[in-house]
Every structure is written in C-alpha cells, then in structure tokens.
C-alpha cells in the first residue's frame, strides 16, 4: 500500500466474529481476484460502515463489477476475505440485496414484471414454497416505490431500458436487505428513472441501509453519494467524498487522464457530458502487462479530451 492510497475514512478496527452491532456493513481484506493468472482485483482492503451511500468508480476494466460480484460470492477469489455485517456472506445472505447490470439477463424471457419482482422473495421463501398473497403485496409495494405499479402485469419484453432498471430495483427492494449492491443502475437510463433512483438511494440512506453503487458519471458523485471508492485494479482511495474525491486521486485512478475535474481550478477544461466518461486509450488506462498505473509512474500529459 503506497502512502497516497491511505486516504481511507475508516480504520481497520479489531474484528469480531459474532454479529456485533457496530461491525462494518462490508469488510473486505486482502481480496485478490484473478482471471487466467491476470489480476483483475489486486489486494483490495475496504471497510464500509453501515448507513453509507458509496459510489464505486474507476475506468473501464478497473474491476468494479468484479468487486461487487466477489463481495457477493459470485466469483472465485484467489485470496482474501469478505465479511458482510461482521459475518461471512453465507451467514448474512438474507441481509444483502443485489441489482445486477441490466444487460445481464434476457429481457425476452417469457415472464411478467410482477414475476421478476417476486424473485426477490424467493430467498426468504426457501425451497419449493411459492410466493403467496403477502409476497405479491410486497412486490406491488416495491413497484409502487419505483413508479412502476401500473406495469405489474406487463410482459418484461415491452419495457424500456429505464423501466427494466426500475424493475430490477424493485426486485432488490423486496429482498428487504440491510446492504444493497447495485451494478451500474444509472447506465443509459432516462431522466425519470435517474430521478427515481436518486430518490430511492436517499430513502435507503434515511432508513440506515448501506448502499454500494457502481457508477460511471463522476460529475454526479458528490451530489448523489457520501462515500466513494476509487478503483483501478487496486484500491486507489476510499472514504468520504469530501476527503478522497480529489483531482490527485482521480488522476491516479484514471491513469493521468481525468475525464472530469473534481475541484475545478477555474481552468478552461470543461467537464465531460454527464454519463459519458471520456474514452481512454487502452494503453493509457492500464499498461499492457496488466499492472495498474502507480503513483511513481511519470504523470502523462494531463491534457483533457
């Protein structure tokens, strides 16, 4: 761990194995995930306290989705340990909700909106038992929260991208969890959906939930989130937005080319369009050998695109 990456908000306190009330929502230690011997995530340490709304940002190929999936136990890890609410995931599954990337499923699958949302109740129902009136009421309430109540009986193939996203959010809401992991919920959605998601995130925060969101639009990070994790294979920085969302850290995460200025020094460089991180040349964002750019490397010309 280099000195510049130590801008972490929470210290790594002594760990308790039982479910202590003040254990962090997410506690990741020394996590390494490799794909065919190439590190996708490298020695990640991350402690997220409960009640925090955290963005996970970083360039393409930084391992954001991989981190979420590794925390959820969906990927084999090469090394490291993950605890959720102070316990291994297997013991706290019921307290974790997941919003995968919208494109990860086949939206032509023959099923209805309500049916998809009901899938969020399957975990607590357990084997064989079918969702009943109570689960259906929960699902309808969740659809109401994302403004999709009128679509309950709609076939999912008829939904727009933003509506699909809101259905996925409703499905996570019925999981009634304490920790939410969302993979790019803002990706390519319409303005209505974006507003819905933001309102939803705020409500979850008011309820004291912990939410981790893979996010692309650097511009909206300070507005939408309290915490941020800057990731590029390694953890660059993590902590409260005010402390770690700095130009220096962003430049480190994005390999010198920051698609957006965190603290503008009144330069002529205008921020990018929201939602469109600047395209980074492959060689820039990550060197060919798969090692992430590190602070010692000569800073490339910071000319903005």
């Amino acid at each position, binding site marked *: 761990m280099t000195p510049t990456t130590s801008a972490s908000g929470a210290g790594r306190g002594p760990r308790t194995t039982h479910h202590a009330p003040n254990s962090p929502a997410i506690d990741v230690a020394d996590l390494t995930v490799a794909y065919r011997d190439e590190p996708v995530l490298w020695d990640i340490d991350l402690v997220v306290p409960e009640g925090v709304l955290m963005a996970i940002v970083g360039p393409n190929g930084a391992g954001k989705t991989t981190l979420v*999936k590794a925390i*959820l*136990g*969906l990927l084999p890890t090469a090394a490291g340990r993950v605890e959720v609410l102070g316990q291994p995931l*297997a013991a706290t*599954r*019921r307290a*974790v909700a*997941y919003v*995968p990337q919208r494109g*990860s*499923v*086949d939206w032509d*699958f*023959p*099923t*209805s909106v309500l*049916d*998809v949302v009901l*899938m969020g109740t*399957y*975990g607590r*129902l357990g*084997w*064989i*038992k*079918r*969702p009943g009136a109570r689960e259906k009421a929960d699902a309808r309430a969740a659809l109401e929260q994302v403004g999709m109540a009128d679509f309950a009986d709609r*076939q999912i*193939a008829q939904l727009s991208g933003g509506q699909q996203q809101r259905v996925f959010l409703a*499905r996570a809401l019925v*999981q009634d969890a304490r920790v939410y992991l969302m993979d790019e919920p803002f990706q390519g959605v319409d303005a209505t959906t974006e507003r819905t998601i933001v309102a939803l995130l705020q409500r979850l925060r008011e309820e004291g939930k912990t939410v981790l969101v893979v996010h692309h639009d650097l511009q909206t990070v300070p507005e939408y989130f309290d915490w941020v994790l800057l990731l590029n294979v390694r953890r660059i920085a993590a902590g409260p937005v005010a402390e770690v969302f700095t130009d220096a850290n962003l430049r480190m995460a994005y390999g010198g080319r920051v698609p957006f200025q965190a603290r503008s020094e009144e330069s002529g460089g205008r921020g990018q369009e929201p939602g469109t991180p600047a395209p980074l040349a492959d060689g820039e964002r990550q060197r060919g050998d798969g090692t992430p750019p590190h602070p010692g490397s000569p800073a490339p010309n910071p000319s903005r695109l």
Partner: protein
Amino acid sequence: MIEFDYTLRTVALGAAVLGLSSGALGAFAVLRGQSLLGDAISHAALPGVALAFLLTASKAPLVLVIGAGLAGWVGTLCVMGITRTSRVPYDAALGIVLSVFFGLGMVLLTYLQARPQASQAGLDTFLFGQAAALVGRDVATMAGIGALALVLMGVFWKEFKLLLFDADFAAVQGFPVRALDIGLTTLLVVAIVIGLQTVGVVLMSALIVAPAAAARQWTDRLIGVVAGAGAFGALSGASGAILSATTARLPTGPTIVLCATAVVVVSLAFAPRRGLVSAWLRGRRNRQVLRVAGTLEDLYTLALGHADPHYPHPAATLRTMTHSPDAVEPTLDALRQQGLVEARDDAWALTGRGLAEAQRLARDRGEGRDA
C-alpha cells in the same frame, strides 16, 4: 384389423408421451440458450445403448434407456469439463463431444452387428427411431419416467425459473446454482432418452427445440411456453408416428420431426403479435397511420402560407410533398370519411377538426423531438 388398431394406438400414445415430455422439458433448455446441448446429449447416448446391451445382453427398454441416460450424462459432464478447464468455447466443446461419442457409438454398433448371434438385431433402430416396435410395456416405461421428470419440474418450478432468468441472483439468495444446473440438465437427459428408441439419436434434439420454439410464439408466460411445448410435442409425436406406422418404409424419427417443423412454421407465420403475418399487418397499419398523419400535416403546412388555415389546395400539390404520391388520393378519401378534410372544387381543405388534429400532431412531434 383389431391387432393393427391396437398397435397403432400404442405407437401413437407412446409418441405422444415422448413428445409431451421432451417438449415440456426441452422448453427450459431452449429458454436457457442450451438448445444444442440436447443434440450433444442425444448423440452421446448412442454408445450407452450399445454398451448396455453388450454388458447385459438385454434389450429391455429400461436397461437401454439407463445406458443411454448414463452415456448422455457423461457427455454433458465432458462438455462442462472441457469448457471449464480449457479455452475451448462452449459450441466447440458440444461439437467435440457430439461427434466423438456418436463415432464411438457407431463403432460399437458395427461391432455388435458383425457378431454371429442375431440377438442384437434392432439396436440400429436407435439411429433413426422405430415407432412400430413400441409395445405397451415400452409406453408404460416412457410414461412413468416422463411423469417423474415432469413432477420434479413442477416441484422445483420456482427455483428453475430463477436459474433460467438470472442465475447470479439465484446464487445471491443462497440457492445452490451448480446443483440446480445439474438437476435441470438431468431432466433434459431424461427427456431425451425417453424418445431415443422412437425418434433416434440423430434427430431427437429437434423434439427438444421445435415445440418450445413454436410455443414461445404464442405466449409470454413461462407456464404457457412449457405447456404449449408439451402439447405441440405430443401432437407432433402422435401424428408423425401414425403417418410412419401406416406408410411403408417411412422412418419414424424424421416423420415426427417434419410434423414438429410444420408446427414451427405455422407458429412463426401466424402467431398473434410475434408472427410474421401479424408483424406485416402491423407494419402496413403503421404505414397507413403515418400516411394519414403525413397528408394532414402537409395540408396544414400549405395552409400556414395563407391567412386562412382552411385554404384549399389541389391533390397535385400534395403529391409533390410525399414519397408515395400514389397513396395521396386514397388517403385524402380516408381523411374525408373521418371528417378531417373536405373537397372544395378540385382542391382539398382542412375542416375545423382536421385543423385541430394537425396542430395536435405537430405538437406531439415537437415534443417527441425534445424527449
């Protein structure tokens, strides 16, 4: 004659039973994008049939079916193993397993054929299927196994549905995805081996894929796809078997598959909403609506050049403003019947309602551009 009717009934019933189970169970494979896995499993089952006979010297359907099932299962494991441990892509692994196992099966069958005893006669019907050989006992075996598989499918319906739609989400909620995957594949193996004797290893996968593809055209519900695939499978099986049994030298497997294909073609063409005919009609209606709106807007545009919004213009002017000038006159007639335009001398003018409608269209279009 009575004897013939009994045989025919048995054959039709047996083929219907296999069509029902392979159609219904195959629907899950198709929805999961694993249609070709069925092909690999059925081809991989051939050496199992030969080996089962070699080891037991029995041609009892249950024995052969178990041999076929085990070999099909091993074939599936090989596909999974190859994709997990090497960089060979999934479709290539399917191709490898399919051809290697089928080749092995053919070698074993040839070896059996060359033996002096006559007891092995009939094993080669597993290639293209032979429904005429079905007896009541076979049908009972098939029905028993098929019913068991369908019951298991029903019991774990919720879990399988979640696995099909979003396996990661199933895993996050604590369901053992690997075990469910193996369970679902096992049901597919069962569906395939039930039909091997009647349809044959070469074409069995068609009965897995075709009924589901046809059923998907007619319904948007999972239960509908599964039930529809079962019904279409039973229909194809029974009609194909009857055709084959009543016509000399008509192999059963291909006949059943052709019947299933006919169902698919009809479904692709005529299903409401997803069918080609319905899509064509929808397209035509949309074009007509667009033409009507376009002509209305053209009249409005012309009228804007005058103080009077109801100023008439000849059809010839409108013909210059559209890509389909021949459609202008019929469209104007349609608009007049709706009371949106009126003819004055040789020219056409917007009515009060027509003007309001044109303004609404222009407004909607403006908003559409902003959104």
